Each structure stands twice: as structure tokens, then as C-alpha cells.
């Protein structure tokens, strides 16, 4: 089934699976309940001389339709918890880090630069154009300068708000090279709809080459105050 767009992060398959599992469970519930609704409505429409059955309920049935959904839902919750813990509950060890500072209406993407440190004058800072190596976990540190933004890469299934005053770490490991889009998912002002960025996933050696080029281009004045 390919109802969701192609996912290109290591965790997108588990999110998609979770989605399809819920779709299957709710799909069955949907079909059964809607079918009963239509069937009952047609089957029991008023007819001459037929009186409705006088009943106030049935406690056995009440038990069944309380417990069955409860068990299903808790099971869905528990399996979601595993996936969730894997995505947002931990950060796999990695030396590849990116800092993203969001502001109205711009994604400012920071790489460490030649010295391997953030917040130094040789940091690489690029606006709205992000590159990542494929098959390598990347830690993304999110900040915001003004209002809440939300870093959203549909192809990764990754979404995380960038909140002023907080520093929030997420991670992703891309599984396929190509270009993808970054969007802002939290209303951030009149330019919210235009806060678009580009994301390129490169082979590791190409990524290193690209990064070196960027480092060579750094004009120290562009760096943020340490």
C-alpha cells in the first residue's frame, strides 16, 4: 500500500506501519459500524403494524463493546509507545550535528565548520537549504529567535516545533539520496505559508565535499555572535 508519500528516513517505515495498522483497525470499525447503521436504518424502517421491540439494553453487550475497544486502543497505545520512544525518546550517538535556528520566515542552518565546534566564527550558515549525508544519523538541534515554528520534513515524517527559549534535539537518518522539501508546520505569521526550505540528501563523500566547499566560502562576518 502506498497511500502515504515515500518515506526516506530510518523511522518512516515504522511510522507508516503504525499508520496502516491503525487504518486497518479503524477501517474495520468504520465498515462494521457504518454498515450496521445503514442496514438497521433500512431494515427497521417503520412499517404498518410492526411495533418496535421494547428493550432497554443488554448488559452483556455493554460489557463487550466496552472491553473490546478498550483492549484494542490500549494495544495501539502500547505499540505506538515503542515507536515513539525510538524516535523522540533517544538520540543515537553521532558526530554529525546541525543546528537550525528558525525565525520569521527563514530557516537558518548551521554546520560546525572546520574547527568542529558550533558558535565559532567559522560556522557554516546557510539559509533555507540544508544538506545531509545519507545513512548516517544526524542530530538536529532546533531553536527559534522569535515565535514558534515547526520543522517539518514530510519525506522523513519528522516534525518538531522550534520554540523560543527552548533548545530541542531531534534526529534523523536518511535512507535515500535526493531533494526534499522543508516546511513550517506551525502558524508563525503572515509568511508562514512561504517558509519553505530545500533539503538535499547526499552520498557521504559528496556531502563531505559539499561541506568543504561551504567552509571555504565562509565569510566570518556572517557567523553568529558567539
Amino acid at each position, binding site marked *: 500500500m502506498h497511500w502515504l508519500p515515500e518515506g526516506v528516513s530510518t523511522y518512516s517505515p515504522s511510522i507508516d506501519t503504525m499508520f496502516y495498522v*491503525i487504518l486497518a483497525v479503524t477501517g474495520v470499525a468504520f465498515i462494521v459500524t457504518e454498515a450496521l447503521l445503514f442496514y438497521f436504518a433500512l431494515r427497521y424502517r417503520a412499517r404498518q403494524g410492526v411495533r418496535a421491540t421494547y428493550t*432497554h439494553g443488554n448488559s452483556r*453487550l455493554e460489557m463487550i463493546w466496552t472491553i473490546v475497544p478498550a483492549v484494542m486502543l*490500549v494495544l495501539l497505545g502500547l505499540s505506538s509507545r515503542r515507536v*515513539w520512544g525510538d524516535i523522540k525518546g533517544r538520540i543515537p550517538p553521532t558526530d554529525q550535528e546541525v543546528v537550525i535556528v528558525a525565525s520569521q520566515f527563514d530557516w537558518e542552518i548551521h554546520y560546525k565548520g572546520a574547527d568542529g565546534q558550533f558558535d565559532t566564527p567559522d560556522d557554516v550558515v546557510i539559509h533555507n537549504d540544508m544538506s545531509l549525508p545519507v545513512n548516517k544519523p544526524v542530530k538536529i538541534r532546533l531553536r527559534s529567535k522569535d515565535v514558534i515554528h515547526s520543522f*517539518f520534513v514530510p519525506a522523513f515524517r519528522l516534525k518538531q516545533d522550534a520554540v523560543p527559549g*527552548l533548545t530541542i534535539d531531534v534526529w534523523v537518518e536518511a535512507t535515500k539520496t535526493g531533494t526534499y522539501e522543508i516546511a513550517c508546520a506551525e502558524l508563525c*505569521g503572515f509568511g*508562514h505559508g512561504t517558509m519553505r526550505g530545500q533539503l538535499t540528501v547526499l552520498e557521504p563523500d559528496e556531502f563531505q565535499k559539499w561541506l568543504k566547499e561551504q567552509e571555504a566560502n565562509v565569510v566570518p562576518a556572517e557567523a553568529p555572535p558567539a
Partner: protein
Amino acid sequence: MSLKHEHELSFIRKYIFSMDHKIIGIQFLFMSLLFMIVGGFLAMIVRWQLGFPDREIPFASHLPESLNPADPAHYNAVFTMHGSIMIFLVIIPILAGAFGNFLIPLLIGARDMAFPKLNMLSFWVALPGGLIMASSFFVEGGTAATGWTAYPPLSADPQYTGVGLGQTLWVVSVLILGTSSIMGAVNYITTIVNMRAPGMHFFRMPLSVWALFITAILQLMATPVLASALGMLLFDRTLGTHFFNPAGGGQVLLWQHLFWFYSHPAVYIMILPSMGFVSDIISTFSRKPIFGYKAMVFSLVGIAGLGFIVWGHHMFQSGMNPALGTAFMISTMVIAVPSAIKTFNWLGTLWRGSIHFTPAMLNALAFVSTFIVGGLSGIFMASTPVDMFIHDTYFIVAHLHYVLFGGSLFGVFGALNYWYPKMFGRMMNSTVNTIHWVLTFTFFNLTFFPMHILGMGGHMRRIYDPTLYEFLKPMQPMNEFISISAFLLGASQLLFAGNFIFSLFRGKRAESNPWRANSLEWSAPSPPPHLNWGDKLPTVYRGPYEYSSPEVAEDYLPQNRPLIGAPTPSRTVPAPARA
């Protein structure tokens, strides 16, 4: 208060500054319906922009500057006001204000509310609140543009939106409307606890009353928390404080916690009354007792109680601790259970009934079928990892419209069809309303179902031009389709509006019990006089759902009809099935 004063009241005291719960209910009704027109119109503008982002609205030159969505800042204002008006000025006041006021005393057999003056005040506070919100369109800088959720810092500092006074008026208006809600809630709770007619035990109350009762409790407990948050926001905006500004030591997420602590219960404020109405309507037109009355009551109570511990499900991606997210996920999963119970009991009520497809019934069935979709889509979003993808996409928009339009509003249409004769003493034309139902149900689904698919494609909400994104471009035809369906959905409402107004003057006169229903309001004349019943209040002998009872030849048995020679049904719930 006594009957004889009725004729001495001047027009103003009788219809404007009235203390009669029925008049106040009708005042709320008209206010909400008028705002519904405004809110619906704004929705059409939103859909035009999304369906046809390159084309100017045909009537753009006639719109006030602040409503022309071609300017992205105005687009934000338009959907913000659409949401705010629909929630704070349409659904909440129509359910709690209009139906709460009109129905509670009539259904429990009281002459009026416990505090008629407070009741009058609650309307005359709500109306200025609404007018303040409406006036914000016309102030310098335009109206609020931060969504109905008004997340700071965006909403806290004019420099981020360019909206100054407009957003402040929004805050003030919501505060005032909240005050009105609390006044109403105090009245409803006191009235229901204290003023039930003789024999009207709690477990003989119609589910509409139960639902309105629980709703009032939610309003009472949740609204003040919103007020505290709004107060902080107002201080941040006007007095330079930093509740939500991290630069001054504030916490951005504090607003979200307080806001959703109110607004999650508020979504139940917006649907529980409809659930009650639908239960009554389905039972009446299936000519069959409601299935599992007590289960219905306890699931209402359960939803309300659990409703206070699930607010974090709106904040899974907000930066809240992920472990807390897990806890909120589990509680959210659990809250879907009472919704499931209610659905099955509605189905159980239809089973082996004798179903009459009046417009009220059709709308109630539409409620059930769309609420199923909305409840099930909630489960996707309750799953934290799945929500990471669909949060703030059109999947959410689909969900909330399935529960609020499909749920609450079909409930309202059902209730209006059902109680119109009681309110105005005349019948609406049922053919017109059946056509209205067919069109509304069809176009509703054509409008909102595809939004799930947009959301699955990652389509963000609150963006004004989807074609700016490569990955959204292929979905633009669907956006156009949705917009056209939405226009047709909007146009279909003219039928109902026309029928509503026409029938006020020309409708067939209604008898006191046109649906052969059981609850007490049908024992009063249509429309009921001041103080509802003549000199004697009805006495209640049984629950409200004794349809097709073997004790009588007719297929209904009003709550207030004494049966000579038959045992009075047991105290609370009538005896179990005999058939």
C-alpha cells in the same frame, strides 16, 4: 413570580430584556445563527483562496480590506476569525446558550431557570462579547491573525503579526464570552440539581438534560482556566509582562498547557449536548427506548472526567517531554472508549426499532455516521508517532470538521428540526429540510473527507497557497474539488435558512406533541407560555424513553401520564426487557 404578571410586561421586558428562559434561548439562537452566516462566509473565502490561489475573489473589491485573502496576512485573519467565530460564537452559544436555556427547564419540568436575572445577564454579556469580536475587523491593523489557538509569542507581541488592537479585542471578547458561559453554567447546574419536577429522579432525565448538565460542569471548571491564561496574555500585550516571553523569564509552552486544559474539555462542550439531542431524537423516531440508558449517562460522565487529563495530545510535537506525551497518548486512547460505547448504543437503539425518517432523524443519523469517522480519525492522531507526521496537517482539519460540523452541527440541525415546533409553535416544511439534509450530508462528505487524504500527503494547515510546494502541487486538483464542494455545501444552507424564516410566519401551526414523544416539554403548549405550564406542574412517573411499551396501546408513554391499574415502573431505570 406568578402567572398574572405575564400580560403586564412591556415589549422590551418580554422580548429584549426578557428573563424567560425560552426567550433568552431564542435570543442566543438568533445570535448564533447570525454569526454562523458570518463564519460560513469566511469559510468560503478560505476555500476560494486554497482552491484558486491565483485567482482573485470575484467580489474582492466589495470586501473590507482586512478580509481580502490575496494578501497572506489577511488570509491568516480570515481563518482565525472563521475558527474563533464558529467555536466561541456559534457552536458553544447555540448548544449551551440556545438549547441549554430553552430545553433545561422544559425537559425537567421547571417553570424557569433558578436565576432568571443572571440568565438574562448571560445573554446581555455574550452579545457585546460577540460584537467586540466582530468590531475587530474594522480596527487599525485588522483583526486577530494567530489562529483560534492564539499561541504566543505570535499572539503576545504585535511586532510579529502587525496586528495590535485587533488581537487585544479578540482576547477581551473571548474573556467576556467565557464570563457569560460561566453564568450560564451556574444557572444550569443549580436548575438541574434543584428544580426537577416531582418524580423526575436524576435517572429519569432525558439524555439531553444529562448532556447539558455535564457540559455545564465542564464549562464551569474549564473556562476559568482559560480566563487565567487570557488574563496573562492580555498583560503581556498591554502591560509589558513576560508570562510567555522567554526573554523575560516566561515560558512559551505555559500558554499551550493552560489553553488546552480548557480547550480539550471545550471540544466536549461542543459535542456532548449534540450527543444528548441525538440520543433523544433517535429514540423518539425509532419508537424504541434508548439502548443502555445508564451506559449512555456514565459514558458522558466518563468523557467529561477523562477530558481533563488528555489536553497534552495537542502538544505531542510542541517540545513537551516525550514521556509525558506517552502518558497523554494512553489517556487519549482511553477516552475514545466512551465514544465507542455511545456509538454502539445508538446502533442498539435502531436495532428492531420502527424508524421514521423525519428531517430530525436524518440529521441525527448523519451525526452518528460522521461522528464515527471523527472519532476514528482521532485515534490516528492520538498515536504519538503517527501524529508526528499528521499534526498540523489537513488530517487534523478533517478530524475537527468531522466532529464539529459532522457532529455538533448535524446535532444542531437535528435539534432545530425536532424542537422548532416547540420553540415557535409552527412546523418547518419537512420536504425542504429533507432536501437540505441530502445536500448537506453529501457535500459535507465531499468537502471534508478528501482532507484526510491531503493530510496523509503532508499538506500543512494554515498555509495560504499550497502550490508553492512541489510536493503539494499534485494535490491541487483535490483542493479545487474541495473548494467547489464547499461552495455547494454553503449554498445548500440557504434552503434551511429560507425554510426557517418562512416557517416562522407561514409554517403550519404545531400541536403540542407533534412527534408523539415522551419528555415533558411535549406536555406544554407549543410554544409554551410564560412559566411553561398552567397552574400545575407535570408529575413524572417514569423515564423518558418508554416507546412501544407493552403497558399501553400507543407506541409512546409520556413521562407525566399516570397509568391506572398498572404498576409504576421502578424508581430509576425502567425494568429490563419483557418482549
